[in-house]
């Protein structure tokens, strides 16, 4: 019996393909729970999940909170504006204080790459990376993979185009690791300032670079659009948003070049009219809301597998099957019982 063998979820890069597939399979069954009338199972009853968000987030934080609550865990949200970080506390001290309250899982988003790794060394709780700087956002990549698998039936052998600000995008990084591990071919495209020429080989072997959107989307089964992170555009990477929209915004006619059943994804929040046109965002090709739905399922799977089981065996003690030898009914016991045993 293989074990899931993971204490934290810090990045996709450290995961094996088997672990990724197991997470996706588990998430698939959790998706059904959100369709029930009573959207709650008792799996994590009595466990505590802390959502520690040092960066603004509505979707991801809400998604983790709903996921924890649907598993019956107690979810506590801490955001930076209300935390003692604003009063000068270091990350490590915050972590130690939280640890003293014995949470089972801490979900952290931080603007510095590596913050979750730092936390993992300081805490006993399972740490889930909900986005660290421009490094990784593993649950986003998992929910994207779940959405792709749901609509295309597989990931292996697919052509995926990732378009936009790859330089600043943890979403792109996690997706590139995951898609490459599961056998998809990834092409990235974006402005030269945001997709440096040496990028492909640096991130993952086999990632192709395209200069133009038209080039990247040819025959693509999946087109992933990245958000223009206006808050990170301080160093004049782009001449203007309008220019970006003209050259790198995705329009309906781009999809004529892609595979006939190509799907479009965006991690949200969308800048309509900049990286994605409204006609695409509102079309049947766009799976943006499916991604959000799958996000809850993926986060349930992550919390369940990290904060849940610790030993081995798929079935319970009263159902498990051992490797002993068959008995022959020689044990001395009451006559009635004995006869029952012998004619088994």
């Amino acid at each position, binding site marked *: 019996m293989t074990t899931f063998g993971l204490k934290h979820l810090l990045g996709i890069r450290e995961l094996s393909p088997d672990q990724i597939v197991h997470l996706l399979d588990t998430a698939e069954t959790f998706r059904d729970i959100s369709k029930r009338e009573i959207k709650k199972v008792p799996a*994590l009853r009595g466990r505590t999940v802390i959502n520690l968000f040092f960066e603004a987030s509505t979707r991801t934080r809400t998604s983790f909170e709903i996921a924890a609550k649907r598993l019956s865990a107690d979810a506590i949200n801490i955001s930076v504006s209300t935390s003692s970080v604003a009063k000068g506390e270091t990350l490590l001290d915050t972590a130690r204080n939280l640890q003293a309250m014995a949470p089972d899982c801490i979900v952290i988003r931080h603007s510095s790459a590596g913050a979750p790794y730092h936390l993992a060394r300081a805490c006993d709780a399972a740490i889930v990376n909900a986005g660290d700087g421009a490094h990784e956002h593993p649950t986003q990549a998992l929910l994207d993979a779940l959405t792709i698998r749901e609509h295309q039936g597989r990931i292996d052998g697919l052509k995926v185009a990732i378009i936009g600000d790859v330089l600043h995008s943890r979403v792109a990084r996690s997706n590139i690791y995951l898609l490459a591990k599961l056998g998809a071919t990834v092409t990235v495209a974006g402005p030269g300032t945001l997709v440096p020429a040496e990028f492909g080989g640096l991130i993952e072997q086999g990632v192709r670079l395209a200069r133009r959107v038209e080039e990247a989307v040819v025959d693509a089964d999946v087109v992933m659009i990245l958000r223009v992170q206006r808050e990170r555009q301080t160093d004049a990477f782009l001449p203007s948003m309008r220019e970006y929209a003209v050259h790198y915004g995705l329009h309906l006619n781009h999809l004529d070049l892609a595979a006939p059943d190509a799907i479009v994804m965006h991690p949200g929040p969308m800048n309509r009219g900049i990286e994605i046109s409204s006609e695409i965002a509102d079309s049947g090709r766009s799976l943006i809301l499916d991604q959000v739905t799958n996000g809850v399922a993926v986060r349930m799977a992550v919390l369940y597998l990290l904060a849940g089981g610790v030993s081995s065996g798929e079935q319970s003690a009263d159902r498990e099957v051992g490797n002993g030898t068959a008995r022959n009914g020689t044990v001395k016991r009451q006559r009635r*019982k004995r006869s029952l*045993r012998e004619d088994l």
Partner: protein
Amino acid sequence: MDPARINRALARLASEIVEENHGIKDLILVGIRRRGVPLANRIADKIAELEGVRPPVGILDITLYRDDLSTVGAKPIVSGTELPGDIEARTIVLIDDVLYTGRTVRAAMDQLIDFGRPRRVQLAVLIDRGNEHRELPIQADYIGKLVPTKKSEIIKVMLTDFDEDEGVVIVERPAAEAAA
């Protein structure tokens, strides 16, 4: 217990279920994963032979309702639960391979009740390991075979749906596991 005897026990369970419920009106058979599922389907087939109509069959996966999550698995496998339509005011027959401590059935009932309010819930098992092992006040309404066993033993139910062979045997729990 060989395949023929399993088959006869299931035939008897099928006719007992029909008799007890005066037919199959509002009846739903629900198999508990994993081995309760093929058993539920086989019993449904036998009821179809008797009554001319096959009762609907559902599947329960109780992984998320267990009370021993911390001791269950580092790689728990969660499969889906599928119920055929509304269970409100229906008669549910839960079906599993072995009744031992009763904890699996407790979890199954908890989950079932999250889906609605059945009029009645009954329990059918292929093997009952005996009352003395029960850790909860749960008994079966329909029993394929009562097989008193020791705690150190394991009842191994093999069905061709999952296993190479078909049959029921008693095996000794491996020493390391018994000590744990």
